């Protein structure tokens, strides 16, 4: 008999968001996750630039990590264009079906 702690943590996170009881100090963390999910809902895969733009628009931390972008680009780590998968309608429908019960 053991307690699945990660499952419990995930459950509490989801519940706290549903009930509007999320800790205000977690604002940015939640914003990041939401931006992440927004990005993959549209294209099926993560688009880093899109993620950061979305995140900054949620948190207004416009200047954060700015010097990092060119360093990443120079090392070939930054994709300019998003990759759109063929089945992205299917992915979007997965999103909408799962959102039915959550907020």
């Amino acid at each position, binding site marked *: 008999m053991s307690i699945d702690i990660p499952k419990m943590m995930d459950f509490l996170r989801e519940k706290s968001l549903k009930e509007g009881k999320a800790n205000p100090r977690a604002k940015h*963390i939640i914003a990041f996750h939401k931006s992440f999910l927004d990005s993959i809902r549209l294209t099926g895969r993560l688009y880093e630039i899109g993620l950061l733009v979305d995140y900054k628009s949620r948190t207004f931390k416009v200047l954060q990590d700015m010097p990092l972008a060119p360093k990443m680009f120079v090392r070939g780590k930054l994709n300019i264009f998003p990759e759109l998968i063929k089945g992205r309608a299917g992915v979007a429908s997965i999103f909408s079906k*799962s*959102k039915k019960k959550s907020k």
Partner: protein
Amino acid sequence: MLPQFFQNQKRKVNNMTLGLYPGCSLKGSSREYTESVLAVANACGIELTEIDDWNCCGATAAHNLNKELSLALPARILSLAEKQGMKEVLVPCAACYSRLTITNHELAVHPELNEKITKANGLDYRGSVEILNIIQMLDKYVTPNLEGRIVKPFEHKVACYYGCLLVRPHEILKFDREEDPQSMDELMMKAGATPIDWAFKTECCGAGLSVSRTSSVGRLSGEIMKDASDRGAEAVIVACPMCHSNLDMRREAINSYLGEKIDIPVLYATQVLGLALGIDRKTLGIQRHFVEVNIQM
């Protein structure tokens, strides 16, 4: 961007298609991991077939915010792999490995989820796909044939960093052991390295807080680098793009937390193996790292 990395070469492994699920990081910010995986696979005659039209597994964001989403996105990937005739899929990213394996397990153990998760989303998954992490794949297909192929033994002291998701939870992953794991250490020994015994093998690096809480990453990853440095490691070896990013790309935050500059490089296990096999640095993507890798080769 460089399409030749994702061509399908028709040499099968044991007459079986070994699938590849790169995941979002390996296509973008950690592309050197993919480069090294493919380089090692090519050098050892192993064919990897990328799953066609794969989607993001949802990573931390999905399982933190929405349980159904966190199972449905990986379920789509698994059903694609099954349909494409793959019995085993290599997942180099430890986070994707964790999500896919856990989803595989949940769907097998809770058949009622099949209704909610797979059928409701128009998927059909029979549970036949086996997920392998990078070390499992190397131990199965590469290391048995390494005899005599190590031309440049990586003779350095290394600290093998497993991170959170490679060996936990043991009941589901059934890989190595949760405390003081040894699988990566043994792999590094086969490449000629000397793995050290250190205390932070499975301590968290800060994971997905890289952007939203960079200071926490600085602290957590800082403790890891400090212990490795104190014990004389010349390089830290990882098998996860998130860990690599936090220990490498966020080195400034680490140095600022520690109040000292640590210049120990961070290498992927496949890069070390590749170097030992005699593959050149550029093919393995070593120039892409933030912290310079200037240890003697």
